[in-house]
């Protein structure tokens, strides 16, 4: 049954939405928004692979037979916090570019660069 793969398709669709925003939009903030959607799709990919049918959250307790896989949770937990730190770095760069070029649009920045050359 192919329908059992639906979690991956959701991930692919989200990932491509993020990818489209990154390549088709010129605004730097919007590119960063696209990147965070892309990033979240990877989180969902890992977490959906960790899920086991009839499993519960991986906190040990009596009377529970099946736990979901804890390893991807650990990887993604740290990745989320690292993600916000790097997003902040990206936003900081966008702010500096806006200050230096007077615009956060890729095309305006390109034009100014070409004039300088």
């Amino acid at each position, binding site marked *: 049954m192919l329908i*059992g793969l639906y979690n991956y398709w959701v991930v692919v669709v989200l990932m491509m939405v993020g990818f489209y925003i990154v390549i088709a939009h010129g605004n730097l*903030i919007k590119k960063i928004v696209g990147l965070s959607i892309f990033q979240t799709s990877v989180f969902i990919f890992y977490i959906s692979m960790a899920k086991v049918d009839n*499993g*519960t959250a991986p906190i040990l307790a009596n009377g529970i037979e099946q736990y979901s896989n804890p390893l991807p*949770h650990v990887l993604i937990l*740290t990745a*989320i*916090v690292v993600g916000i730190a790097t997003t902040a770095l990206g936003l900081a760069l966008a702010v500096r570019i806006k200050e230096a070029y007077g615009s956060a649009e890729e095309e305006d920045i390109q034009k100014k660069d070409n004039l300088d050359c």
Partner: protein
Amino acid sequence: MKDLLAVVMLLGIYSLLSASFFVLMDAVDVAFTEAAVGAGISTLLMLLAITMTGRTEHPTRHKPLLALAVVVVTGSLLIYGTLDMPYFGSAEAPIHQHVAPRYINDSMQEIGVPNIVTSVLASYRAFDTFGEVVVIFTAGMGVLALLSTVRRSEDNETIDSFNQSMHEQHLILRIVSKMMIPFILLFALYVQFHGDFGPGGGFQAGVIFASAIFLYTMLFGMSTARRVINQSFIQILAATGVLLYGSVGVVSLLNGKEFFDYSALSADPVAGQHLGILLIELGVGITVAAVMVIIFFNFADRRGYSPDKESEDL
């Protein structure tokens, strides 16, 4: 959508929704982090950034059809690639056969902590987490290098007068939030030290702690917050967290065990593990909270600062 404010708000809602389906997929720790980071801090930072880069987007797009074609081709290749993947929820998938059974079956004897996510994060894969903490620290330093401004007293006065007029208008908001802040800080500490037994830990606690400080800053203005939290103090704290984490590893090296083997910290291996996890979670919490505050303060400071002033001074 041309209005970036709406875009950022939708991104916040999307993050909160993704947190809710992380809960459905049993990843409670991850959902906790995503709710605090994605819906809270990241939305706030994006809003701060758009106040500086402009709220509207240029309508032109470059070659949307070409972009669409690239996206569709990549997407279909990826979907083709998923056809060999194990089904959703299948217990026989290769990912569940490798190290996961050891974590689930043996972590109670080896680490003695009910939350498996915490024992993997802080003990089995402590080296990995150390790397992540260093990355967060480095990103914080990067933001500091990019955005830090030399503050001048005359700027302070104008900001102060602006703050006063704004804050008098929101009396109820101010009083209610003032009552909330101690509880948020207390909750952060609970999350920090209860991470061994339930969902939580240093990463979430650091983010929640930082958000209480953000709330305070938003209500009482930057200059008041600056008086409470000194910039150089918070920078030292960020470094202290990383050092605390690293030195736990060094202590276990000096005691003749491997790097981050906490059984070296105490005569009883399980007690040593408890102590080690507590210490490194504390290090993580301190670093994450300090770095988030550094990032927020530098973004907030950059507002109302014009680069022309700097060039005049030079």
